[in-house]
């Protein structure tokens, strides 16, 4: 049974027990049959609540530091914050030794925040205003050192989020490729301690890194036209990256990395659909009226074009290997998509709309019924309100949507009849 279903059944069992439908013994027997640890699922909720509580505690401390207590001498302020840091971390150590692991991890989580607050306090006391990201980098390094020594993915997730904050803040000066070190460490730790949160954070971090590199490269090459062109390229890369994420989730599932597979599929789907809907709503031919740089050759010839081909090709190979032929068709579409939006950029809206409806249909085919239907209805909604005069074109587009969805529905029916 996959993890999502296990969580669902565990929650249902708790409800049935509370409603008196089944007794404790029966619920435990059912749980044991499906290898569900009812006790641990309750502990997990408590653990998440503890993390949220400590997050608010950290925010409270940050606000307190922000108040700038000038009446208090510098050394007293420093002593207080460093003592809090030492106390929190040593308490965590104590809890770990006593075997209360979840409390210990929550305290280390708070400790990493206290460490960042201490850095902010020193910067405040000595009016350090030169380059704030350096302070955030120090925070990320310290947090990573502690997190790696605990080997806990939730702390690595927190540290990677801090590193991502540093990377984004440092963009003002440069694209910091050192961020890849944090990504590599996090990936290694993910394999050691599976985690949904870390999978999602890694997916986001790598995507942000790719986008920032692209924006940085484009700004030197395209000057004033950079924005329009870069957005279209980010859409293309974003789509192939998301599909690659979905493909990798199949590989993770095969190697029994269930948590990674579930999280990767979820974040890839959401990202891919969000990008598609953005593209079909905002990538308009009006943006390209006076640009002819955005042709397919310009895209394929550059590093991010190669990256797009790599993502789409690997996705195609993996999806074919796992016999996911419907999704593999999307990978094929993605491979030729730069040609489409390159040569027919006046029709970018229509191209992305059709791709969105095909994606919606494939999602329904893969049993993501709600997600697929929502995608199709959003496309229909946006296109209907955005038709602006072109009634015939929009009517034809709707006709095409209807055909796509009908084809899928007929196939579904055929499969049902066969079964």
């Amino acid at each position, binding site marked *: 049974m996959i993890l999502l279903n296990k969580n669902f059944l565990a929650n249902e069992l708790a409800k049935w027990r509370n409603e008196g439908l089944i007794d404790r013994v029966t619920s435990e027997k059912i749980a044991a049959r499906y290898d569900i640890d009812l006790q641990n699922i309750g502990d997990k909720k408590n653990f998440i609540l503890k993390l949220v509580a400590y997050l608010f505690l950290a925010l409270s401390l940050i606000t307190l530091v922000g108040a700038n207590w000038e009446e208090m001498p510098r050394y007293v302020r420093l002593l207080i914050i*460093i003592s809090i840091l030492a106390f929190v971390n040593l308490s965590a150590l104590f809890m770990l030794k006593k075997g209360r692991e979840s409390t210990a991890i929550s305290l280390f989580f708070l400790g990493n925040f206290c460490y960042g607050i201490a850095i902010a306090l020193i910067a405040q006391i000595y*009016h350090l205003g030169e*380059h*704030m990201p350096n302070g955030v980098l120090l925070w990320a390094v*310290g947090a990573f050192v502690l997190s790696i*020594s605990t080997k806990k993915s939730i702390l690595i997730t927190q540290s990677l989020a801090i590193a991502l904050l540093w990377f984004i803040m440092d963009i003002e000066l440069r694209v910091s490729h050192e961020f890849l070190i944090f990504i590599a460490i996090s990936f290694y730790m993910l394999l050691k301690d599976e985690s949904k949160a870390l999978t999602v954070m890694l997916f986001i971090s790598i995507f942000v890194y790719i986008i920032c590199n692209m924006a940085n490269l484009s700004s030197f090459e395209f000057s004033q036209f950079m924005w329009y062109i870069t957005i279209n390229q980010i859409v293309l890369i974003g789509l192939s990256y998301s599909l690659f994420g979905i493909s990798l989730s199949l590989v993770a599932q095969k190697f029994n990395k269930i948590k990674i597979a579930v999280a990767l599929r979820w974040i890839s789907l959401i990202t891919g659909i969000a990008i598609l809907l953005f593209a079909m709503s905002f990538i308009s031919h009006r943006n390209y009226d006076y640009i002819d740089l955005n042709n397919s050759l310009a895209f394929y010839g550059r590093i991010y074009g190669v990256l797009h081909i790599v993502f789409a090709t690997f996705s195609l190979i993996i999806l074919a290997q796992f016999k996911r032929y419907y999704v593999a068709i999307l990978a094929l579409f993605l491979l030729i998509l730069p040609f489409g939006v390159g040569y027919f950029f006046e029709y970018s809206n229509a191209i992305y709309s059709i791709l969105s409806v095909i994606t919606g249909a494939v999602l329904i085919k893969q049993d993501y019924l709600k997600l697929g239907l929502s995608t199709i209805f959003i496309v229909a909604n946006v296109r209907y309100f955005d038709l602006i005069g072109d009634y015939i074109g929009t009517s034809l587009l709707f006709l095409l949507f209807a055909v796509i969805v009908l084809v899928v529905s007929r196939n579904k029916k055929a499969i049902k009849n066969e079964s």
Partner: protein
Amino acid sequence: MRVKILISAIIFQILSLIAMLAYAYVPIYFGKEIKVDVTLYDPRDLLRGNYVSLNYDFSALPIKYRDLQKPGTKIYLALKDINGTYVKDEYSFVKPKNQIFLTGRIYGNRAKFGIEAFFMPIDKALQIERDIRQKGAWAILSVMDNGSARIKEIVLKE
């Protein structure tokens, strides 16, 4: 073994804070005290609280030092003493000799020297902003031989 590693990690965090403290304090202890003209306004930093953003007339770079340089390029500003107040002498990309200078980095059409933020409680920041508009102010800096500087205090002109 695991406990030893964890203790080392905790000690690493505390030692890195002490190192940062030293980095912040050394220019104040060893640096030479100088006075420069300053104006300011009052923004807020999400992590460090309220501060006044200090503006020096030497922060705006002449055209020949802008644009061609990548953001973050090091730049040196030599200062000269005019009646007890230090003012801009010249910019260069090599360290000036036998002169007090500030080391900064280029950010677009401005240079930052690490002396642009002065943290204080919000009421005081707003008050000092009003006072400076009327009277003007000096920033008292402590400058090291290598050009790194810290702000010691803001003094209103009488």
